[in-house]
């Protein structure tokens, strides 16, 4: 089969997987939160979330009506032929998924306010490219909800304050966001690089599973410290009060300019939808986040 067709099929499959099935690590974190939540209203909310996850799987329907803005992350092996055809394949897969899954059309022209109706438009779906050695192609999709996107923040911290400035920045972001991003949330946090780079890293950090702490032990410790701190806010599930406000904090970084300390916090709602697959040179397709048989359309 042509690379374009293979990519289109695989992209359609991971889009469908992402919006219907939450990744296992997110499900487990939500179950744990339900077991540990002491607020009665908070428990009602988490119960509704868990019931909803089951119903979505049973009826093969999107978990949330906001099926998000579609963002692809592509790891392209440098030896893969036909890379120039991938963009078109991803756009076609998006259109097909919008119709067939179905997804809510969420791409609006910011000047005319017209909805394109098929989740595509200038730079949407957004594609992040990374060139890696080898001859396989790894596709990841994130379908990013609007409610949690609306509270994402970037800021320029005072370099002299160091990591303490970051801790304050994250706590304030969570307090300000309150009920809006559909807590319990996942936080992608990044520092350094520049204003654009920190947010890009923060958003990408949302892809890391909740049961995988940062490989750097010091950063892993900071992730845990911030997680415990933001869960002391009492915002709780859906902002109705309780001890589960955030399920996990994933931190990434780049080196910074001596005068700048860019920081970014990307929020994801509890419906943290992502899915990945790898297309190998021999045509074998591995679904990485959702363990389904190769080629099986779920």
């Amino acid at each position, binding site marked *: 089969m042509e690379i374009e067709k293979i990519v289109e099929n695989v992209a359609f499959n991971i889009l469908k997987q992402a919006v219907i099935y939450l990744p296992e690590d997110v499900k487990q974190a939500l179950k744990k939160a339900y077991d540990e939540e002491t607020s009665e209203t908070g428990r*009602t909310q988490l119960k509704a979330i868990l*019931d909803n996850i089951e119903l979505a799987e049973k009826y093969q*329907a999107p978990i949330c009506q906001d*099926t998000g803005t579609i963002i692809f992350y592509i790891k392209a092996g440098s030896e893969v032929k036909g890379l120039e055809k991938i963009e078109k394949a991803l756009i076609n897969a998006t259109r097909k998924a919008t119709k067939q899954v179905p997804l809510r059309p969420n791409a609006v022209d910011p000047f005319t306010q017209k909805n394109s109706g098929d989740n595509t438009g200038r730079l949407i779906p957004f594609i992040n490219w990374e060139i890696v050695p080898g001859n396989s192609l790894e596709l990841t999709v994130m379908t990013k909800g609007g409610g949690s996107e609306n509270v994402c923040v970037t800021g320029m911290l005072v370099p002299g304050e160091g990591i303490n400035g970051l801790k304050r920045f994250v*706590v304030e972001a969570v*307090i300000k966001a309150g009920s809006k991003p559909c807590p319990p949330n996942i936080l992608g946090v990044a520092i350094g690089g520049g204003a654009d780079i920190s947010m890009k890293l923060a958003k990408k950090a949302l892809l890391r599973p909740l049961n995988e702490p940062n490989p750097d032990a010091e950063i892993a410790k900071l992730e845990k410290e911030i997680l415990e701190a933001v869960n*002391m*806010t009492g915002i709780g599930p859906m902002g109705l*009060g309780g001890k589960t406000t955030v399920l996990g904090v994933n931190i990434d970084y780049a080196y910074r300019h001596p005068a700048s300390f860019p920081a970014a916090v990307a929020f994801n709602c509890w419906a943290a939808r992502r899915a990945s697959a790898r297309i190998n040179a021999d045509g074998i397709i591995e679904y990485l986040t959702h363990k389904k048989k190769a080629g099986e359309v779920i």
Partner: protein
Amino acid sequence: MAIYHLKTPISEEEIRKLKVNDVIFITGTIVTARDQAHRRALEYAKQGKNLPINLDGLALFHCGPVVKKEGEKWIAVAAGPTTSTRMDIFEDEFIKNFKVRVVIGKGGMGKKTTDAMAKYGAVYGAFTGGAAILAAKAIKSIKSVEWLDLGTPEAMWIFEVEDFGPLAVAIDSHGNNLFLDVQKKVEENRQKIYEKLGLSS
């Protein structure tokens, strides 16, 4: 915490019984409106034009559903709530003009809406954000859709529902607002968090 099953049209008397933290389920007609439909509805009211449906005693739902059309029939595939604060700029006028008794959404609403709910007799029912299939399964049919020119998320969808919920009464008609209470507590907790992290305030 009491549980109530309400049928539309809902009377002011039934609404006045409800207190924050109660849980309600609604059977009857609920109507969606997001930013654009709110804006248009209020323009209609200003011009003295009737809305496509009389909202008196019904529930308003902040929702842009995923829908599909089978033949001539629309089906709600996923229909969870959207963030309600965006509608805060319209809601007091909306409640005053159209006499909806329940506003369903997520994330809560502010002081102006809370005051209007106390004045005219309405409550805010928080539906779990993202729980779109739970909502869709309670929608028995789509009666009609109006203002489809606004796009499917922003159009006004008229749903027939059965035991739609659970909705946590987060703003009652007596001036209580659970979200604002939680926010107050969060403000109080900030100092403790700063101390734990070794930050100066």
